[in-house]
């Protein structure tokens, strides 16, 4: 048996006999089990409610009876953000982005029912999810497991006997890393198997692209992240003067990486790239819809210009003489102008989000916690870019719905015939049922290049440090 394997075997045996490791392992397993179980119950409940309500709203739309298409456009419908099994791994921004949206003419509403609004401020520190346990608590377990792996050998006097056997420092370092990796794998394996089964068994594949790739990427990236903590803890223990110093160093780094730095970066990005208040945002949109994006094209002027163009094009004297209902065309023109206004204002908001996220991405180059935080949300489909994609698909569906209503009004009703004309079930059926499919994970990952580079760079750096430390058997007391 190679010295590396012998060292790993010995570390595992000693760790098991020191009950604290077993106790910490049980705590982590319990927390993961609770988070997965609670997440799965919540997922099942939400999924069932969403599917049931979405079907009810579709039925309401189809069976709304005969009415004027514009009234139908205001009757509108609701779209619910579908819940995927993999999102129970990392709730991400789900608590802040809202779960449903009301679609109607003229207005691009924001998402409603944000769980964060209904909870205490504690939700801002993160709900108990598997991601939270893996990102924050498991590194703490690693620190407690590994901080003394070399300092204790030195302090108890076994290090000199160990080195006098002719075993290389490389075998010692990698033997200990292998031991901690195996112990951690044993603790986390049931959880990861559970995640694979839940995501594979769920019916999320019709919503999320590359479900299996996402699951694998989640496991691989968390594996890399946790390996970094193992490598850093072993390296610190190797170089620390005492176990106390090693523990203090590791805990300080843990606090900075997982608590202080993410909060500081979030605060700095919010202050550097300020989002408008909801009230100001809505007021600006209403202003631009009424007065034009340039401030000099009021709605009345735009309607007058459209009327003049159409009268000229069809060579008629009044809108009543046009071969279609001018009101329908006017409504659609108004909608299309409001699309420009919404796209302009939402574009600015997205740009601000993008700048804020950019800062977080840059910070992730020096903080692997921030890398895994963003990547974990991306793989789970609960990140900002996945939400923006869903929001755009929903808005495109709203625009399609209103266009169908306005076109029907223009083609099938007469000018001034608002109360007389009524469309029916045939028109409502023309609007397809809403369905959503996420973009591929690769297109989402384009937004997280820095996070990936950061994580890989830290891995390479840690391997270099470990190889450097293990390259020569350094004198013990110099």
């Amino acid at each position: 048996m190679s010295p590396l394997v012998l060292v790993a075997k010995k570390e595992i045996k000693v760790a098991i006999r020191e009950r604290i490791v077993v106790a910490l392992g049980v705590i982590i397993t319990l927390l993961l089990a609770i988070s997965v179980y609670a997440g799965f119950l919540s997922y099942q409940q939400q999924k069932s409610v969403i599917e049931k309500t979405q079907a009810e709203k579709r039925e309401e739309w189809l069976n709304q009876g005969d009415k004027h298409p514009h009234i139908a456009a205001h009757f509108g419908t609701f779209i619910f953000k579908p819940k995927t099994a993999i999102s129970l791994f990392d709730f991400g921004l789900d608590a802040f982005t809202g779960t449903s949206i009301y679609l109607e003419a003229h207005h691009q509403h924001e998402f409603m029912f944000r769980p964060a609004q209904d909870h205490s401020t504690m939700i801002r520190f993160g709900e108990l999810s598997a991601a939270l346990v893996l990102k924050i608590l498991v590194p703490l377990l690693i620190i407690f497991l590994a901080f003394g792996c070399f300092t204790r050998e030195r302090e108890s006097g076994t290090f000199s006997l160990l080195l006098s056997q002719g075993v290389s420092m490389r075998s010692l370092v990698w033997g200990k890393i292998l031991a901690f990796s195996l112990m951690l794998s044993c603790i986390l394996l049931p959880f990861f198997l559970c995640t694979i089964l839940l995501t594979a068994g769920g019916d999320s594949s019709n919503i999320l692209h590359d479900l299996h790739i996402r699951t694998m990427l989640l496991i691989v990236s968390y594996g890399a992240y946790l390996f970094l903590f193992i490598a850093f803890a072993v390296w610190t223990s190797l170089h620390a003067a005492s176990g106390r110093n090693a523990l203090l160093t590791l805990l300080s780094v843990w606090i900075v990486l997982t608590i202080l730095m993410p909060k500081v970066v979030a605060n700095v990005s919010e202050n550097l790239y300020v989002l408008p208040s909801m009230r100001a945002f809505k007021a600006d949109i209403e202003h631009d819809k009424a007065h034009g994006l340039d401030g000099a094209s009021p709605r009345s002027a735009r309607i007058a210009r459209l009327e003049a163009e159409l009268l000229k094009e069809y060579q008629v004297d009044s809108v009543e003489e046009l071969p279609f209902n001018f009101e329908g065309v006017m409504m659609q023109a108004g909608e299309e102008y409001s699309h420009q206004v919404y796209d302009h204002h939402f574009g600015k908001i997205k740009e601000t989000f993008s700048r804020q996220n950019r800062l977080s991405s840059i910070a992730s180059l020096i903080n692997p916690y921030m890398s895994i935080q963003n990547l974990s949300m991306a793989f789970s489909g609960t990140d900002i870019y996945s939400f923006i994609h869903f929001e755009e698909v929903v808005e495109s569906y709203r625009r399609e719905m209103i266009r169908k209503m306005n076109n029907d009004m223009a083609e099938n009703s007469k000018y001034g015939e608002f109360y007389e004309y009524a469309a029916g079930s045939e028109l409502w059926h023309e609007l397809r049922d809403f369905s959503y499919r996420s973009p591929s994970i690769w297109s989402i990952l384009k937004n997280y290049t820095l996070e990936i580079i950061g994580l890989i760079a830290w891995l390479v750096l840690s391997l270099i440090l470990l190889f450097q430390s293990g390259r020569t058997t350094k004198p013990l007391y110099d």
Partner: protein
Amino acid sequence: MLEAIKLTKRYGNFTALNSLNLSVNQGDIFCLLGANGAGKSTTINLFLNFISPTEGTAKINSIDVTKGPEETKKLLSYIPENLKLYPNLTGLENLDFFCGLGGKKYSTNHLTELLTESGLQPDFIQKRVSSYSKGMRQKVGIALARAREASVLLLDEPTSGLDPKASNEFSSLLLEMKERGVATLMATHDLFRAKDTGTHIGIMKEGILVEQFASDDVSFRDLESLYLKHMHN
């Protein structure tokens, strides 16, 4: 087998070992005597490459220990003053682990035999080392030295704190090793043990090897007088 050539170790202005020239051949037991801080442990640590020399060379089997640290350690066995083992492993598990690191794989029966022959009570073999006395731990160290079949033995005050019976058993080990042609370098305060088991004796003072002779050339009384003379000067 063991050779020190102008071996020197300085810590700033303090010279812990000053230009030591020493050679220990196969079957020799070289006992280094001297007060605390004389440079005995420094010499052992230099041969173990636990510290690096400021000047000079320490060689084991003609290999510079700083150039072939792992290779030279494969040739030696080391027992410190207070042998520390893993308290949560049994004596047998500790022995198995350290033998394995040195590339030796023995059956449980053979390891048990080694421990018993080294004087460890049979009912302690399967007990965790946390319940062992210092003497018991030293016996595991003796078993390890036997098991490793090393050609060099480095001992840093190995009998310090041992009861007379355990010390006597330890002397038996040294003689057994001597018969097998093992070169032994032992730092000790025990003049009687040095005279009784050593083939050569050196007296160190303030980092300098001030006397070096074959143990057969002096009586115990002469050795004591010589030692005290150097300690008082």
